[in-house]
């Protein structure tokens, strides 16, 4: 069976050696071929075993401080070398800003077709068939790559990570990388990690609570965060909220923020502008609370409450805490 390369992102929340979207990629890769993990940075036995648990049958490893210090191109050179050695049926990369940059440059070097933002990937007679959500989420498109090694970026939550019943011991293949000078053109001079909120990551949270302009004021946004904590959810914001600097940009959901597809999406004080809908209408269940009965978000809601969120949410938090006992 042919290999399917997966670019693995190290370090997830809760001490996991690998981020959850990478486990989703390993799960998806099994539909097309034999997953081969490409790991940038140091690798230990525990990580190899962990990857094997999610179906990796081979691990390509490249370790150099340059991989963190310089943007994108070193990882492209690592992946290109792995492609040369493995002749894979496809390369899967997580659809986030860095992943897209890596995939884009790789596609140019391989002269291969690229499809981004996959919400699903399936095996097909002529190679992987990729599902995307387009036109602000209004249409679903299935397409495939007909030239070169398919390069596919896959959105977080496109699959549920599944362990394999009988992991095999993967062969670990170190990649000796001679980085070109070209790879050293964009250097990270300073990286200030943001303080952790202790909440799940927006990108792969099962539940998201989002506040919009209707929340009314930056200090009032606290009720959104309290509901999120009661539900064990991540916190999102609309563009109006981040433009007003009530909350930082990394919380923004929608066309110029994040695209999310959680199991449950709670939108409070969110009207439902098309740019926002584009980023969340793939959510499985949508709940909306808004004062305006004409707000477009109600057309998408599985359960809607026309009412004042500052009355409904605190009462809901009480109800949830009562039920938790």
């Amino acid at each position, binding site marked *: 069976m042919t290999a399917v390369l997966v670019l693995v992102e190290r370090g997830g929340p809760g001490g996991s050696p690998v981020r959850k979207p990478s486990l989703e990629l390993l799960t998806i890769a099994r539909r097309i071929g034999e997953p081969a993990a490409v790991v940038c940075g140091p690798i230990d036995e525990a990580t190899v075993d962990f990857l094997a648990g999610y179906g990796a049958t081979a691990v390509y490893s490249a370790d150099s401080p340059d991989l963190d210090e310089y943007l994108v191109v070193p990882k492209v050179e690592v992946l290109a070398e792995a492609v040369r050695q493995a002749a894979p049926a496809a390369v899967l990369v997580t659809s986030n800003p860095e992943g897209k940059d890596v995939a884009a440059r790789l596609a140019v070097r391989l002269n*291969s077709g690229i499809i981004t933002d996959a919400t699903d990937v399936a095996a097909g007679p002529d190679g992987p068939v990729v599902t995307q959500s387009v036109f602000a989420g*209004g249409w679903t498109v299935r397409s495939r790559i007909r030239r070169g090694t398919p390069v596919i970026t896959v959105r977080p939550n496109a699959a549920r990570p599944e362990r394999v019943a009988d992991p095999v011991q993967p062969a670990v293949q170190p990649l000796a990388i001679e980085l070109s000078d*070209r790879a050293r053109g964009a250097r990270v001079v300073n990286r200030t990690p943001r303080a952790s909120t202790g909440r799940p990551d927006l990108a792969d949270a099962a539940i998201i609570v989002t506040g919009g302009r209707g929340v009314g004021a930056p200090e009032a946004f606290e009720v959104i965060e309290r509901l999120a904590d009661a539900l064990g959810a991540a916190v999102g914001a609309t563009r109006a909220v981040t433009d007003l600097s009530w909350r930082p940009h990394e919380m923004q959901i929608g066309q110029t923020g994040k695209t999310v597809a959680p199991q449950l999406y709670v939108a409070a004080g969110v009207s439902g502008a098309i740019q926002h809908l584009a980023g969340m209408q793939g959510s499985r269940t949508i709940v909306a609370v808004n004062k305006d009965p004409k707000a477009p978000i109600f057309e998408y809601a599985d359960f809607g409450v026309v009412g004042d969120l500052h009355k409904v949410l605190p009462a809901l938090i009480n109800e949830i805490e009562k039920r938790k006992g």
Partner: protein
Amino acid sequence: MKIVVLVKHVPEPTAAWRFADDLTLDRSAVEGRLSQLDEYAVEQAVRLGEAGVPVEITCLTMGPAPAADALRKALAMGGDRGVHVLDDALPGSDVLATSLVLAKAVQRIGFDLVVCGMASTDAEMSVVPAMVADRLGVPQASNAAELGTDGTTLTVRRETDSATEEIAVTLPAVVSVTDQSGEPRYPAFKAIMAARKKPVQTWSLADLGIDAADVGLAASATVVEDTQPRPPRAAGTVIVDDGDAAGRLAEYLATASFL
């Protein structure tokens, strides 16, 4: 410093889009405009000049004849000249072909810095900046929230999911900027009039030395199998709060196993 800003003419985001018979986006059916996210790129190029670096700003687009409107808007915002790559062979081009054409045009213009928006508001792939950079053999930084330059190095501040990063990029380079980088100016009437007199060149594929067989729908490395409208969501329950909405919502969430 020679700056090239990549701009795209896109269908109005609020219009109803549809697929043409060849399963590409039907661009003739809707009004177009300069992609809102590219306005931030033009704005940043102009601001670099205002910050004291002498700049010459060329706005570059590829697309059918109406794409010239997007160029005019970019020139009204402060671009010095425009280049429009226009060729009957181009429609349906995938990102490999698009990046090839844009990179050849950038090379022909000459550049120290290429500035792009964070995504087009139609295809939304966000891969063209990296692909153009790779074809040009230069470094690139994506999603800049703040730019600065001394003429040899570009300094970028950007926000990732987990950190604030400061990046030093050796010029020549490609950068993309986010909608957090600074509100684009609204051109005054005088600027709109002045833009009509700014030079715009139209180049064909032959001008760029590109074989027509390497672009367009037939050369696309991807092929669409089918398209489906998203099934309408089953009508949900909407209740008006009479004081009991929280209880009913909690009941709904519990039934759906979220509590």
